[in-house]
């Protein structure tokens, strides 16, 4: 057998190993029910901000804590504690992805991704600003 064949076999072995580990290492998308059922595991939870309820950000006490309420895709609502500063333009978010785990009665997130309605707003055309017309 040629050495390059041996190298190839090693490569394939590494690849398979990598794939299995990558899948095992990965977290998964879930709803609140799943996340709260498995409080030790990390999940990605997609949902929407509850605009009715309060958002608490008190940087004087802790700039790295922001509390709000979110509905998941099944409309289940939970308190969320984000261990980061309040993201810019948070109120405008259309969709939120939280990465973290359930703890007690709240979902504790270390990461947050937001989708804002920024990119494409159909049916909205603005006139030039005063100074330019």
């Amino acid at each position: 057998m040629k050495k390059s064949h041996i190298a190839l076999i090693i490569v394939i072995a590494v690849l398979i190993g990598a794939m299995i580990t990558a899948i095992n290492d990965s977290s998964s998308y879930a709803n609140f029910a799943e996340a709260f059922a498995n409080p030790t595991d990390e999940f990605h939870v997609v949902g929407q901000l509850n605009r009715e309820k309060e958002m608490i950000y008190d940087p004087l006490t802790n700039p790295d804590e922001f509390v709000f309420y979110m509905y998941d895709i099944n409309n289940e609502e939970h308190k969320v504690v984000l261990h980061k500063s309040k993201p810019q333009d948070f109120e405008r978010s259309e969709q939120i992805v939280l990465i973290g785990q359930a703890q007690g009665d709240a979902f504790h997130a270390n990461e947050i991704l937001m989708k804002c309605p920024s990119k494409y707003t159909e049916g909205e055309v603005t006139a030039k600003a005063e100074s330019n017309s």
Partner: protein
Amino acid sequence: MTYPGEHLTIGQIGNIFTVIAFAASFMSMVAYFLADRKNDDTYLRLGRISFLAHSLAVIGMVATLFIMIFNQYFEYHYVWQHSNTDMPMKYIFSCFWEGIEGSFMIWTFWHVILGLILFKSVKGWEAPVLSVISAVQFFMLSMLLGSVIFGHKFGSNPFTMLLREHPDFSNLPIFENVNYTDAIDGRGLNPLLQNYWMVIHPPFVLFGYATAIVPFAYAIAGLLRGKYIEWVKPALSWTFFGIGVLGIGVLMGGAWAYESLSFGGFWAWDPVENASLVPWLTMVGAGHLMLIQRKKGVSVLSLFFLTTITFCLVQYASFLTKSGVLGETSVHSFTDLGMTGQLAVSLIFFCVLSIVLIAINYKRFPTHEKEESITSREFWMFVSSLILLVAAFIISFSTSFPVINKLFGTNLATTGERIDYYNQWITPFAIITSLLLAIGQYLKYTKNDMRSFWKNISISAGLSTIIAVASAIAMEMRNPIYIALLFTSLLATTANTHYWLLFLKGKMKSASASIAHIGFGLLLLGVLISTTESEVISTNSSLYDISVLGEDFSNNENILLMQNDTLIMGDFFVSYRGKRAEDNFIHYEVEYMQPNESGELEKQFTLYPYLQLNPRMGNVAEPYTKHYLHKDIYTHISYAELEDKSEDAILEEHSVGLGDTIFTKTSFMVFDSLDRTPQKRFGGLTENDLAIGAHFTLFDVNTKAHQLEPLFVLRNREFSMTVPDSIPDLGIKISFDGIDPENESFKFRILEEAPKFNDFIVMKAIVFPGINILWLGCIVMGLGSFLSVWQRIRRK
């Protein structure tokens, strides 16, 4: 209804160019293909004419769109969507490639430029190579057509008009005005892209992507003609040119992220970043296999595989970013324009084409019987190329989770600690690659005397060990894997320098490989040091202990700075001095100080991190960095109160006697005397007025005394009026409302604004040591790649 202000002609010209470019690419593909099959000059001439027509049309398209943006023809959807009148002219290029259509256009433009260069220089390979390029162009231009064929819309046309071709808009009141073109303004450019890196990074990366077409076209041409080896020679220089361009382009993206995105670093393993890195890795692999092929011969299968997969991965990168499949997993992918299917078809077509052609020809591939010696350079180069392929595969696999989820209905997601996750995966590959980079140089092709190999390598190995140990101790680096990478990247740098100086006598003529490898070694070194040794110095200064929540939640990374307070942060004392609004930017002034010999704080530098306000796209925090030679101090705003949220003022009435004290929220005031002749304070008093002043001494929170004297006035001794007094700094205003002679009490009204606590910011600051090594490495590596191209051109 006609609209006299619309510029209709230019849109029609744009559309004509698009149709010509599309049709001519098809003609050129077919004609060149037949010219190669039938060896017929008529077809060859037809192919040439079509390709030239195609090239002119593509250049025409680019020019047309550019003119539209330049002249701000907002009646066109693309111009309206990506620019506005407020935008500085220097970002006009960013507008051009902000959208999918523009970025496709610039990509096809680079293909045309490359095609035209090949046209002149290709010699003997013209027909098949240009046929492949035309085929790629055919697919790409179909993404720009925007016409409906058999009920399916193909592509998205950049020359459509807001009013007519976008029915959603046509009912808007603004279009009732026949001169609406005078009134309309665009939506404007995404604030994240209003940055000089965004002017050069996208075209550079797209140029890098475009270069992958040349080796691919040669490889396909080789397969079509059954010339499995001959294509390598002309493709080689192009591959290394591509490695240089794409490598620099990818790192420019890193520089953009570092300079203007607030995610805290130059590389976040974002899917879009990964998608651009992966083809670079396989391109480097392919380039090195080509080198072996030129010297000694290599497995033809692996050569074809790496060359074609590089191009397919470029197509895949385009698919990932432009189809919208990444969705919420990436900060900077495009939104879906309904081209997912079309992009997928294009991707699958080129993958299948490559696989089928390789499969058909596989039996006829020249076998490469000779067994490489394990001590030969070619063996280790081959192994390195495979390692790069594996690394590329691993990055792709995790990046493709959203695609895998779509295809198989799974719901995989990368972990929250995405950066750690990838770093951990890729570090072993970096160690092996850099080690091989060092070893490879001392090995000759074919066979080696191992004694001289060990002797040669021992010098640089010894030197690297000393530096690695010393710097690991200095940086308190404990992780053995990082120390290993520190050593191997140093070894790669020193070994290649040593080899160049000693064996090549420092000559530039054959220095390209050494220089590129030195650059790569430095790059890894810079990545390692700046990543592992970076330190978030802005830890939470509050008393609240966040770590009680559990180990996972100790990411204290932001500091709260009240205006003019001075807090300790890392080696510095920092103070937030105030903010300044300028256009749509708010600059925050943050002063960094250090104690001098006499113990006084001395200003070192001031950073101005800023927020870019954009009502439509959202506000963006942009960092500001202090660059030193050996480290950077990077600062960005995490949170700032934008509106002045002073709460409602409190109004209180008091009835007090002389000598009493009134308490307010933030102060107290003593009513110490009555002043019966307060004329000085109020020039409007007449002789008939009776005025009484109530004198107060007010003490604020700092026990500083202030004097207040509100007046009670009886005008003409008939009707009363008050002359209030105030201390604006404290937000206190007092009015003297009346006198109650029976109780000997005096009535006052005190208006106190809610204690406005000072302006504050929440800020993050990170020290990145050694990041300049990274940028230096990038430049050196790029120079090495271009040098190799130049040398090959000169040798011809």
